[in-house]
């Protein structure tokens, strides 16, 4: 186990370079140290799975990568630009143009239909797909005018994925995308994520505490107590359909 996870033979181009990243925040009256000096590179076009128990810091890292949060210390470079130096407007532009997000609880706007939830993003993106195309991609072409409450959990998550990829982001960040779903539905959702990664070439990071999901990743990053414990390349990458838990 080397200290710098990037030191690997014939390293591909990095999309993120993370150095000595730390993050602390106040939670009520408690000071939480979420990240304690993380070093990690993520590569263009890969599907990386971040594994770890809850509270290990993986969501915090994902939030910082997605420009949702700022680090307390250290460096995050996105294609030669230091995210820590972004001001609020630059951060907003970064999220708008480069990043797609998928959350555990879908975070759909309940007052908007599937199509409108996607349109929310396509309306402000630079080179988006149509909401219809994005929804067709996740297999929801038929249910576009349903409100979130009229959709099952899996369908809602697929809408969320359609919403995230409709802007053709460079990075797709998924925070426990199957956490609220049963296994067969989860597999369906993972299949969509893998397809986006493959067909659009979007660099994809999936957070999970379900180690089975790691089997579909290019690389597996294990997290614990705010640090990277290990980074492993998955020689035997499985398709989502082959996964069971």
């Amino acid at each position, binding site marked *: 186990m080397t200290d710098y996870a990037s030191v690997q033979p014939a390293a591909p181009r990095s999309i993120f370079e993370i150095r000595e990243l730390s993050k602390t925040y106040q939670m009520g009256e408690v000071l939480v140290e979420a990240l304690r000096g993380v070093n990690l590179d993520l590569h263009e076009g890969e599907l990386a799975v971040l594994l770890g128990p809850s509270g290990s810091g993986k969501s915090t890292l994902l939030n910082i990568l997605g*420009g949702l949060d700022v680090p307390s210390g250290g460096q995050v470079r996105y294609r030669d630009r230091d995210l820590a130096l972004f001001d609020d407007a630059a951060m907003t532009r970064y999220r708008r143009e480069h990043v797609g997000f998928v959350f555990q609880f879908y*975070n759909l706007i309940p007052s908007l239909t599937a199509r*409108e939830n996607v349109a929310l993003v396509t309306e402000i993106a630079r080179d988006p797909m149509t909401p219809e195309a994005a929804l067709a991609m996740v297999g929801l072409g038929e249910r576009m005018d349903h409100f979130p409450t009229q959709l099952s959990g899996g369908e809602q998550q697929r809408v969320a994925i359609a919403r995230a990829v409709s802007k053709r982001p460079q990075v797709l960040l998924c925070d426990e995308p199957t956490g609220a779903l049963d296994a067969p539905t989860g597999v369906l959702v993972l299949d969509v994520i893998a397809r986006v990664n493959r067909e659009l070439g979007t660099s994809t990071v999936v957070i999970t505490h379900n180690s089975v999901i790691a089997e579909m990743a290019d690389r597996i990053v294990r997290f614990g107590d705010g640090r990277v414990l290990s980074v492993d390349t998955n020689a035997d990458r499985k398709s989502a359909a082959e996964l069971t838990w």
Partner: protein
Amino acid sequence: MSALDRKLWRDLWRMKGQALAIALVVTCGVGNYVMFLSTLDALSTTQVAYYRDYRFADAFATLERAPESLGRRIAEIPGVARVQTRVAVQVRLDMPGFPEPVAAAVVSLPDDGRPGLNDLHLRAGSLPAVGRADEVVASETFAAAHGLVPGDRFDAILNGRRQTLTLVGTALSPEFIQQMRPGSMMPDSKRYGILWMGRRALGQAYNLHDAFNDLALSLYRGVDVEDVIDRVDDLLRPYGGLGAYGREDQTSHRFLSQEMEQLTTLGRLFPAMFLGVAAFLLNVVIGRQVAMQREQIATLKAFGYGNGQVLVHYLKSVAVIVGAGVLGGIALGSWLGHELAAIFTDFYHFPYLDFRLPPAVVAEATVASLIAAGAGTWLSVWRAARLRPAVAMRPEPPPAYRETRLERLGLKRWLSQPARMILRHIRRRAFKSLLAVLGIALACGMILTGLFQRDTVGYMMHVQFGLMQREDLSVTFTEPTAYRSAFDLVALPGVRHVEPFRAVPVRYRHGHLDYRSVVRGFEPGGDIQRLLDTDLRPVALPADGILLTDYLAGLLDVRVGDRIVVEVLEGTRPTREVVVAGLVNEYLGVSGYMTLSALNRFMREGPTISGAYLGIEDGALSPLLRELREMPRIAGVAERRQEIRNFHRTMDESMLFFTYVATVFAIIIAFGVIYNNAQISLAESARELASLRVLGFTRSEIAYILLGELGLLTLFAIPFGLWLGEGLCYVIALSMQSDLYRVPVVLVPQTYAFAATVVLVSAVLSGFAVRGRLDRLDLVAVLKAAE
């Protein structure tokens, strides 16, 4: 429409009840503002136009008698633009089919064309023909009150001689927008009218050929009125000048100005209250909305929406709610303004009233509403918009509760767990709870302001006509008369009791302050006419000195013991100093009081009276009025019951209109505040309450926790609101002070009870509405939903 705007409309639709409540409150505020201010604008533009078009004079003077040539000398005073010399007299009329004597002012019209100043606006018929001594024009209201049309005839007693007059026209005049009989409390167009007659004809009747006893003049722009008045006084002094005065002291103009000042005060007070409540409601509702959509905001931002876009999104929903309220308010305000303007057109006898919706008023109302809305919402929306998405995504840290002081004082033992929850919840949201109390209190107070006028009018009537002026009739002679005339009255059938009085027109002076009014003298210890102090204890007439209405003392800035100058405006016109011996409390009118004998001494005259107050036997009124009508020396008769009716009518027209409007508005506020608060409480505690249900609490038990808080706040708010309301009543009463009347703040227990009941009923109904939703609470859904 963008997806974000769709979300906006659907969010609004979901909170339609609350949005509607807020919009209604804004509607009330804007409606009030637009109503008052557009009416005010209509009144003042009409006044300006009317004064200009009909050449309302800038200064006036009355005198005994001066040769016509003096008019030319007055015209030479620098700054004087135009002079109109006139003959003006008070006469008695006998109207056909009307048993009581009627008084009128007769003013001359030039024989050679229209008046150069104070021109008439003819409503029907024509001006008197030159040389026709029997033709008159009457004020339109007077003609209408008696159903007179051109061609009708009636008798007048001109300078002691009965003469039949023919009505040839009806008219309005800028000089008599408000037609008040001198010394009377309220307008009464049946018993007092204005007549216009040819100059030569009227002059002949009063031995004023080539002479005048009344003067109106206009000034060039920018000329100092006081300066001209002094010079006019100098010229008129040898001719029995009673003192010239400017527009400010002209009866009709003065009352109109006071009414307009009142409108201005009310026009700002009420809207400010409503917009304050709207700001509070928006703060609560939008604050809650933003808190509930914390995650949605985070999601929007995660996908690249900027702070500004999020801010605009929420401010748009505020704008929609407020905008709807403003539009409604403008519509309501212009409708009510029309109604109010119609009341005023009638009350003030304008030839027309230019009612329009001034763009400035609409703009002010809109801007004020937006400022209120911004004040109420900006902070919570701005905070939400600036929240870092990752922070917004995390649930809000659990609220930090602590034991309340009440519990630490040792009351804890007696408080059940739910009671402790209620107390701690209120304590944690101390500021919000305080705002809620304030909102409910404001509604409660507003109901008081709506009703207090009714209570007060009742009280004023009781004091004025039940305790002070207790006569059945008051009779005025055409001129000061020997005391023994009172005995003639005693001898009339049906007369039980007579108390003679003397009334002398005077000008009170103290330092540079002066005020034209009357001194009344009557015999001490009288049963009918009594004077009271502020505690309603009878005040004895002093052997020496004068008693003043407390309001007059204020106008002259004098205290008991000060000396004032009293300039008599009739007869030999003595000017003397007297000591202010005391003050009396009067709600209607303004005067000074002396004993009859002291006033006679003051006037250097023998026992003289101007009239008498009569107590009469039941059923004696009609024959007595007929009898009095036949007595030529009687100028006028005022019936107490009639005065009461006049008073009520004036009050109904000008004041009580607001009462109903204010009460309805207050109820809307009470309901809006309480309902919204209940909704918010429910939204905030849904999860907690659902958990309790899961633990086995019954619906009633959790309803107790939710509604208990609301109830507690309401109970706090009511006494506070009653107190606040009293304060507001004082502000309104102060703004209504005028020479015509002073309004005491009187609130009867039933009014307090009514205000408290309205608030309680609103609370209970809101409680039921929320209870319904509480009963339908979907336990699983609430508990499963991510916070």
